[in-house]
């Protein structure tokens, strides 16, 4: 079907839904939903009208909601998990503003609150393939070294799989780590890991909401094939000053938040630092005691209500990792992001947000010897503008539309040296590109049992000069020709429409089925052909030679709640197809290579699987079990003779079990168990001798598997006696309780004790690790 026809059908559907607007006298109820104690806006709270069973909406990313219904007397109720529901009576004779301030309520209280209905919006929400993390709940799940970590907790959900120990990267539905778009208050974060992957860059004290879309995100998101991880920072308490933090074995953190003007504006600053290198100073080895190994991060946010219709937000993130060996070399890397956002209400029905975004990821290598010091810098920098609108058109339809424009600059490698003028000729060419998108989508709820979200995102990715652009022989990697472009010249523009549609049909109050289809395009690719991620892995844009990667994913799911919405169960199946998938030549030279594109090979990929999920949300004991059965393969010309082979992310079985038990007001316990099949890997199938050394012979890429991974963690939190303005607790945890030596890498070598044989050596990163953290909170 041609593009034009698709647009005609879309516009027609929109008109059909709009026609119901003009039939009666209607008014709009709108407002903002906030936490009554902290002033934080509440995202995703449902707003319903008792008298109109088919009407309802959900608060947006800023806590705003809007509902247009006929004149009349109504009971407006809002509810969201973790808070007591609230209802307001209204006689709707004109557009009315109703703001809600909800009190938080623990889901573990035994007594049943009269009138409180447990949420079933996992049944009614048309969005599928979405996981929302309740940040308060993850506070009870300690992970490595006792530090709470959003990314690691997300990997306990089905369809989202850990890339392995010591790796913050994750695979969603068989896609690689770079196929996940990680947004922190709308700014992209390019490397979400600290210390080579042991921790993520997200300090959970600063985070309010975490939502993951597993490939079928709505049209306002785009740019990566497999997932969108949308992370929103806390705004800061707008009523009281709070100082909170924690002191742990490896890292400590502190947060300061408070009002700028009570109820109108607030700020929050969170900072965190590790001090593992203090232990190195105790070493007698002069190389070790002059070494450094630490990271820090700082989250800052301020917001202010300029008027009834305008609200300004400023967010920033600064993080850095430093690794230094003696005083001879060092490497540091980190992200910096900044977002300035302006919410403006054009009317009770039209909400808008304009964002100005900067994001920078830089890594620096420095070396100091024989009186020379040189540094190598590489960086990716984004400048972006987004303008998003939500038009709450009628009681059955909400339109989302907007635009997004981002300018990317990538410096793959630049040398800074003293005492050496020849070195600048070794700088690699910078990459410039400009990514523009427009989107339009509609959330339609024509009847109480059927809802539909459909739309399209149109992306134009332009490759810009200045620079030398090459064409290569795909089979040999030889350069065929070079074209030189000047600054600002357009080398090539790729235009891709990305349709998105998801539908849900409620079978009854406790079950529904959902289906979805989405197309995603990715124009920024991370090159990495090692078994572990490195901070020096290079980002590269699509070029005249590298085409955008395109994925099409369909999914189908059945959702069922049990025991009055206490248990949620779902089974979701998906099938994904990828075009222009990237892989690498045998013996690819990716490090500091001007002609890095010559090392790439292209082909296609496919992934499919089934995700089973059972979750208990209420009661003293809650938790979940997630199990994913899946397969991911690829076929690349030039690899394994062009036959289909296992993708590095192929994970046939992945099981996670999480349990949290609130034993009393003072004590809570948690346990996590994970098991998954090892990643595909290339191992030798033979060996031979050349020039006096033994070398290994490989028959196929990814033809073997690492051994399976399993681990049990347990934790306990004990609350100290609460005083007037002070709360504290101790968290104890044991990581890898039964001390299983999971394989991090397996390498092959000659036996040093017997050179007539070769052996396999397994390296494990973490055995059993106990940890303790003291957390505190002052209110002023």
């Amino acid at each position, binding site marked *: 079907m041609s593009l034009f026809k698709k647009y005609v059908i879309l516009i027609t559907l929109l008109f059909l839904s709009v026609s119901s607007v003009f039939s009666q006298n209607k008014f709009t109820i709108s407002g903002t939903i906030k936490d009554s104690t902290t002033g934080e806006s509440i995202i995703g709270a449902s707003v319903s009208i008792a008298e109109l069973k088919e009407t309802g909406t959900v608060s947006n990313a800023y806590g705003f909601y809007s509902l247009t219904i006929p004149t009349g007397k109504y009971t407006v109720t809002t509810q969201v998990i973790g808070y007591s529901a609230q209802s307001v009576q209204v006689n709707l004779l004109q557009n009315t503003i109703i703001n809600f301030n909800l009190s938080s309520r623990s889901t573990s209280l035994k007594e049943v609150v009269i009138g409180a209905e447990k949420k079933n919006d996992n049944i009614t929400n048309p969005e599928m393939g979405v996981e929302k993390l309740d940040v308060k709940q993850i506070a009870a799940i300690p992970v490595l070294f006792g530090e709470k970590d959003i990314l690691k907790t997300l990997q306990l959900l089905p369809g989202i799989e850990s890339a392995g120990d010591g790796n913050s990267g994750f695979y969603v539905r068989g896609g690689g780590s770079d196929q996940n778009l990680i947004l922190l208050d709308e700014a992209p974060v390019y490397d979400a890991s600290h210390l*080579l992957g042991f921790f993520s860059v997200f300090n959970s004290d600063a985070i309010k909401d975490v939502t993951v879309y597993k490939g079928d995100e709505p049209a306002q998101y785009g740019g990566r094939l497999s997932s969108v991880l949308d992370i929103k920072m806390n705004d800061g308490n707008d009523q009281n000053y709070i100082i909170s933090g924690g002191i742990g074995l490896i890292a400590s953190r502190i947060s300061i938040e408070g009002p700028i003007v009570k109820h109108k504006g607030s700020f929050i600053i969170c900072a965190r630092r590790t001090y593992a290198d203090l232990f190195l100073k105790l070493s007698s080895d002069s190389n070790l005691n002059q070494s450094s*190994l630490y990271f820090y991060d700082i989250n800052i946010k301020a917001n202010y209500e300029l008027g009834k219709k305008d609200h300004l937000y400023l967010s920033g993130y600064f993080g850095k990792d430093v*690794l230094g*060996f*003696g005083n*001879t*070399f060092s*490497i540091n890397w980190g992200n910096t992001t900044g977002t300035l956002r302006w919410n403006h209400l054009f009317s009770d029905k039209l909400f808008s947000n304009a964002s100005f975004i900067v994001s920078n990821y830089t890594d620096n*290598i420095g*070396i100091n*010897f*024989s009186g*020379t010091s*040189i540094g*190598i810098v590489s960086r990716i920098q984004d400048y972006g503008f987004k303008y998003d609108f939500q038009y709450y058109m009628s009681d059955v339809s909400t339109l989302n539309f907007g635009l997004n424009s981002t300018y990317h600059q990538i410096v793959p490698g630049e*040398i800074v*040296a003293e005492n050496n003028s*020849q*070195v600048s000729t*070794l700088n690699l060419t910078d990459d410039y590109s400009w990514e523009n998108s427009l989107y339009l989508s509609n959330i339609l709820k024509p009847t109480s049992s059927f809802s539909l979200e459909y739309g399209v995102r149109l992306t134009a990715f332009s490759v810009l000069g200045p620079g030398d652009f090459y064409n290569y022989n795909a089979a040999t990697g030889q350069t065929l020709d070079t074209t030189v472009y000047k600054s600002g010249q357009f080398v090539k523009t790729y235009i891709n429409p990305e349709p998105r549609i998801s539908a849900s049909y409620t079978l009854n109050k406790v079950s529904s089925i959902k289906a979805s289809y989405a197309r995603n395009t990715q124009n920024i690719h991370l090159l990495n*052909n*090692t*078994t*572990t991620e*490195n901070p020096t892995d290079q980002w590269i844009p699509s070029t005249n030679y590298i085409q955008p990667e395109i994925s099409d994913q369909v999914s189908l799911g059945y959702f069922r709640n049990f025991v009055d919405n206490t248990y949620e169960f779902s089974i979701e199946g998906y099938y994904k197809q990828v075009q222009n998938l990237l892989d690498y030549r*045998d*013996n690819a030279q990716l*490090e*500091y290579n001007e002609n890095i594109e010559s090392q790439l090979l292209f082909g296609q990929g496919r992934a499919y699987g089934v995700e089973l999920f059972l979750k208990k949300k209420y009661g003293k004991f809650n938790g979940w079990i997630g199990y994913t059965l899946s397969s991911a393969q690829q076929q690349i010309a030039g690899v394994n003779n062009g036959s289909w082979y296992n993708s590095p992310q192929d994970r046939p079985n992945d099981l996670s079990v999480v349990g949290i038990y609130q034993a009393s007001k003072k004590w809570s316990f948690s346990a996590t168990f994970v098991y998954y099949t090892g990643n595909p890997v290339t*191992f*030798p*199938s*033979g*060996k*031979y*001798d050349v*020039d*006096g050394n*033994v*070398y*290994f*012979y*490989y*028959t196929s890429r*990814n*033809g073997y598997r690492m051994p399976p991974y399993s681990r049990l963690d347990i934790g306990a939190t004990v609350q100290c006696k609460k005083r007037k303005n002070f709360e504290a607790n101790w968290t104890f945890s044991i990581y890898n309780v039964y001390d299983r*030596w999971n394989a991090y*890498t397996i*390498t*092959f070598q000659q036996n040093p004790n017997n050179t*007539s*044989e070769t*052996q*396999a*050596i*397994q*390296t*494990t*990163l973490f*055995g059993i690790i106990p940890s303790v953290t003291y957390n505190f909170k002052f209110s002023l």
Partner: protein
Amino acid sequence: MRISARHITFLFAFILMAASGLFYSCTKVININLNSASPLPVVQGNINNQPGTYAVILSQSVNFSDPNTFPPIPGALVTINDNLGNIDTLKDSIPGNYTGHKLMGTPGRTYTLSISSNGKFYAAASTMPQPIAIDSLTIQNDAFSKKNKFVVIHFQSPQGAITYYHFVATVNNVTQTPIFAFSDEYQLGNPINFELRSPNDSLKIKSGDTVMVQLQSTDQNIFNYYTALFNAGGTGFDTAPANPPSNISNNALGYFSAYAVTSKTIIVP
């Protein structure tokens, strides 16, 4: 001191090895079931511009769990010819070790190796470049651990086309196994000081040692082969391993190199 692209590569290797060494980790030997592959022929063929004997060694690959004895392949028909029609049939007086001396290796000519063994046929071609003169050898001390010394070879890169080098070191008449492959692509026409060092520091020299360094100028295929072989030795990157690009047809492993050689000797002070 001149910084080269090779330093950059070393930088990455050092940093990442040091970084992984700083973390707590445990290693152990494990038993692992690896598939068996049918044995493949391995060719180590060399011919150079010096008068005398040249050799082609044929052996077989074995399974990973087998001991490191690689059976020779005797009784094969091995010939080398140049592009001017001169041909020599090599003989294995020691099984698997085929030698000849009839051809006079000449820079500029293309040599073709042909092997017929067990009903299979393998061929490789290599063009012998011009020899490169060595200006001198010097000994320097390692900046990281002052006790270690290493050899530096000084020579002049010719202008014009890229030259590919393979350095082989002999210490006290024992040929050393570390691989040194180099391309002067970014330093054409300049004097070059190449340091014979590898990240795993296996070329160890001490005072009183006699070190001889051979400068072999090779064709690009052999440079690509030795570069891949060097990476396969483990530079700390953990890159997805693959077989090095052999210039021999029909899935044989190994290489056939026609190279021009110059050498110099130094005694470590």
